């Protein structure tokens, strides 16, 4: 099942030239680029693993792309996303986030029934591989 999270996720996957252009746009806005990966695409899994530090002093997208290549080498079969963080006072938040790498076989989300207090039952989403 194709996971849709962040920008561009309803579009076909971005190729490297397109990712470079997006990163370039982020750098123009003076946002810091961070690379994160995970094997758990559950929407509630907000905090992905960080790949290195966020890059606050890049001038050119190539720097981020090098890191992305390195990350792909190690975590090629996981989800990788690029976050653009704006450090402006009062904003201090991620402005843009998009997936740049997906596993070959994406896991699906499946609904499971769980027991709850007093014999009640609830439904929850789980990642099924």
């Amino acid at each position, binding site marked *: 099942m194709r996971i849709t999270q962040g920008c561009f996720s309803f579009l076909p996957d971005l190729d490297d030239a397109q990712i470079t252009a997006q990163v370039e746009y982020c750098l123009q806005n003076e946002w810091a680029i961070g690379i994160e990966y995970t094997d758990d695409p559950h929407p509630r899994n907000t905090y992905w693993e960080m790949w*290195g530090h966020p*890059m606050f*002093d*890049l*001038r*050119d*997208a*190539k*720097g*981020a792309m*090098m*890191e992305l290549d390195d990350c792909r080498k190690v975590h090629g079969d996981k989800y990788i996303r690029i976050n653009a963080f704006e450090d402006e006072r009062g904003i201090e938040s991620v402005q843009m986030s998009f997936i740049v790498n997906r596993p070959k076989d994406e896991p699906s989300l499946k609904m499971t029934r769980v027991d709850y207090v007093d014999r009640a039952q609830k439904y929850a989403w789980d990642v099924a591989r």
Partner: protein
Amino acid sequence: MGADGDVMETAAVPATVDLAAEYQSSGVAEILDELDRELIGLEPVKERIRETAALLLVDRARRQMGLSQETPTLHMSFSGNPGTGKTTVALKMAGLLHRLGYVRKGHLVSVTRDDLVGQYIGHTAPKTKDVLKKAMGGVLFIDEAYYLYRPDNERDYGQEAIEILLQVMENNRDDLVVIMAGYADRMDKFFSANPGFRSRIAHHIEFPDYRDDELLEISRQMLADQNYHLSAEAEAALDEYIALRRGQPHFANARSLRNALDRARLRQANRLFTSASGPLDAVALSTIEASDIRASRVFKGGLDVDRPTPQGD
């Protein structure tokens, strides 16, 4: 590539090329004029830069016509004594390469061994990579590059930084230009110990020492920038100072002069403060007298406490 780079790619292959027009429109002329105006002396350096600019301009024209595809090797080495303007020229070089479209952003990242080499195992690679990431799209200026290589210590982490640098210099030729700088003799030794660098660096530019009259001209310009000027006697004193200072240890060309002038300004301020009675006009406030310069230790035979700082020139 910059805006004009994109135009270049989409336009049809031109049948002829007007180099003079290219020279003007690319902004190269502007940078070279600036170089001529702002840098005193350094004739061989300016000559080499003019040659390099011409080469790159022709190469760009050839690429527009589809005659060559390869990015030429642009890594350079600047060798010369401290204070001969290597950093300043590197800055101009970054501008030049940017105007010609050989680097995308045209910024200069100036580093020394400390910025590249870590202190423990596993520390060097991320450090070097961080610097390289920062320098992507611009020029990486490695000052006193020979410190990267320490032959006396085979476990030195410098070797690791060198390997990463070499790899990036080879694989990312489109993305960044590396300029290595340092004293001429030690650079030669460094290159002979690391043949990888020698073969990857196409342009070796030597920076000669300034002559005495050039140093005087430089100091005049430095003072003029700060709205100071030398009295006639002070100029004679400074001339003498330069000749004496050159014979003393740790002489760092223009940087020594800048330090000397800073101290002269200090003495001038002190002189005005202690001796002035009544109001001072602008001329008095901005004139450096001979006594301000002659008070220097250099005239008393040395004991130079003001060593040049080891990094950045």
